[in-house]
């Protein structure tokens, strides 16, 4: 048992922190909130040039063959910086499923594009009626000769309006798990993308597919064989987002401590009051629990071990404690914490966005309940 980063990971963390402190100040985060793309292609290119985007892919596809724990280090720093970028969408939801389930031809074609940051990938999964099981997939793909024709509406597609390719999950048979994943060129005729207006200023889109024709060569992992690919992708996505939250919480903790030490009322720093000290202790406990759980989940994913339980524990924990964590942070910041001129709101909204993406607390507790054997 070893809970420390390797020396290389420490170096990666420090360089990521230095880079993001310079390139991603809150003025940039704020600017991106108003930007239609919600990210900066220039910064994205710099990240790609640093090797971040290709980090988790094998060298033969233009990556640097590092593992998911290395990725976790970066994700934590991105969460800490509130970095707006299609990193998770393109690498975790787009690229890694292709690495898992793609044919050699698909991998050779798409992975170098993803790893180099030249193409942005994302996943079109969730539909307006929600649901995180295969049965919730109603969008249809009908076989027509060697091709398929996709119809349906997908919601909450991350970076849908800037993606070059989408992994589209559509129903190909009536069996509960009869869904197929297609690699779809986002510029295909019949695709209409609309950016949603959200609380966290995330890039989340509605993507409507109207008679979108896709070649049978673009099926990822076999017809009707899509659900296991998606489950694995979601588990990894959850682990990634939990690491981002760990970074998010870390910033909020440090900021809150700095605030209560600086802010004086009744002639003394408010951080000298025991009630606030105990609030801080509670926040610190939530933070440390989050870090440990996120790292454990990332480790299990990285080692290729069964990780359903570890990931569900981390996500359920975050969803359980996050609201209290932020309530305490805001309470201690006083009215400044709800002012847009203070930075706390960036974190409050983004943590919530992560919590509610791909499954609320109840969903993950149910995963744990099943795994406990509660029948």
């Amino acid at each position: 048992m070893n809970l420390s980063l390797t020396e290389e990971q420490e170096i990666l963390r420090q360089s990521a922190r230095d880079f993001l402190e310079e390139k991603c100040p809150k003025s940039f985060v704020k600017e991106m909130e108003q930007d239609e793309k919600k990210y900066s292609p220039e910064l994205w290119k710099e990240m790609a040039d640093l090797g971040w985007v290709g980090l988790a892919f094998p060298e033969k596809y233009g990556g640097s063959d590092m593992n998911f724990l290395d990725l976790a280090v970066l994700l934590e720093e991105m969460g800490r910086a509130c970095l707006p970028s299609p990193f998770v969408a393109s690498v975790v939801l787009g690229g890694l499923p292709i690495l898992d389930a793609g044919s050699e031809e698909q991998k050779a074609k798409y992975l170098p594009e993803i790893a180099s940051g030249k193409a942005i990938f994302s996943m079109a999964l969730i539909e307006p009626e929600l649901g995180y099981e295969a049965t919730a997939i109603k969008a249809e793909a009908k076989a027509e000769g060697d091709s398929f024709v996709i119809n349906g509406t997908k919601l909450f597609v991350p970076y849908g309006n800037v993606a070059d390719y989408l992994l589209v999950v559509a129903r190909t048979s009536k069996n509960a798990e009869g869904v197929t994943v297609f690699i779809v060129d986002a510029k295909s005729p019949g695709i209409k993308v609309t950016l949603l207006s959200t609380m966290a200023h995330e890039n989340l889109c509605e993507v409507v597919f109207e008679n979108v024709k896709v070649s049978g060569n673009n099926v990822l992992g076999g017809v009707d064989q899509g659900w296991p690919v998606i489950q694995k992708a979601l588990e990894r996505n959850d682990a990634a987002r939990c690491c981002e939250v760990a970074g998010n919480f870390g910033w909020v903790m440090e900021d809150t401590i700095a605030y209560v030490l600086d802010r004086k009322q009744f002639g003394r720093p408010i951080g000298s009051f025991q009630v606030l000290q105990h609030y801080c202790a509670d926040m610190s406990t939530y933070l440390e629990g989050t870090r440990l759980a996120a790292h454990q989940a990332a480790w299990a994913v990285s080692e290729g071990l069964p990780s359903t339980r570890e990931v569900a524990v981390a996500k359920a924990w975050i969803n359980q404690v996050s609201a209290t964590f932020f309530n305490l942070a805001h309470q201690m910041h006083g009215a400044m914490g709800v002012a847009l001129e203070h930075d706390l709101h960036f974190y409050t909204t983004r943590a919530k966005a992560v919590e509610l993406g791909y499954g609320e607390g109840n969903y993950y507790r149910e995963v744990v309940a099943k795994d406990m054997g509660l029948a």
Partner: protein
Amino acid sequence: MDFSFTEEQKKFKQEVRDFLEDEVKRGLWKPSCDAWIQSYDPEFTKRVAAKGWIGLTWPREYGGQGLGFVERVILTEEMLRYGAPAACHWFSDRQIGGAVLEYGSEEQKKDLLPKIIKGELYCGLGMSETEAGSDLASLKTRAAEDGDDYIFNGQKTWTSGGSFINYVYVLARTDPEVVKHKGISEFIIPLDLSGISRIPMVDITGTEAWNDVFFDNVRVPKKYMIGEKNKGFYHVMAELAFERSGMERLMGNYPLFDALIKFVMETRDGGKFLAQSDVIRQKLAQLQVEFEIGRLFMYRVAVVMEAGKAPTVEAAMSKAYATAFEQRVANFAMEILGPYGLLWMDSKYAKIGGLAAHSYLGSKGYSLQAGASEILKNIIAQRGLGLPA
């Protein structure tokens, strides 16, 4: 980063499980909640000693196994999972031995450690006094120097170890003239010295696991002082981290948690099993998530100790968190059981062995002993986060 056990550790864990499984099968004892602090069984302690499992982390030259703190957590985790009656040796193994190793003389190490390792030295903890609880440094038990001895006068309360203790660890005032925390020393003394008397305290569960211990002109030879004179309070702050660090803070009522999960799977309400109720599933899964986070906290403490650091903040955090968790488990068990939860284990109607009533009441003491949660949060805030004292 690696959250797994080594092959040797896995083997060790299995060996401990096999041993405990066999003990339960042979009917040598019944699993119970809080057994680590309330169930005294010298014979069990001797069998554990024979396996070499007391003083696991201590150097081989004193009869220990020279193993790591992670191994010790593996051992204690299994002891707690089975609700094994380990109270006779628990305290000596957890912190008395460590204190002797850290601060004791060579002579004291050679005298005390083998006795603990053989499962013969049962040491109660004499820290609290009626007027010195969280404010431990204000303790009044006086140890007045007199030639080669100290003369003890005073009273300790909530001294653990029940009627089985044959040694007592005492924090006493050796210099009343200085600032309060600078005049305290540590002693480990045999209970049979003349002038020591003991009155059992009965707690809210009806258990006699604690004592009032009285010192009436007790002549204590100097050789029983551990470490430097008047440095006791500094020593005890480090030892308390050990006291708080363990898996017992999370798993004291694990037998109840485990039995509750089985109970909801086997018990029907109308046509359905309780485990099919969404409310119950959600709540139990939440407790399971909280348990697993607590377990990570506990292993983190062991990893910090393994690195040779005092886990002051980590142990404070894990204990405050885990004792609150135990209270939630006990309360949820009571909610599930309804009025059956009120029944003691001797009632023929008692469900899941009457563990719930005991734990519901017993768990109220654990967020107090070894550092009240409020004190622990002060430690997290002031020593961990740098807020002003």
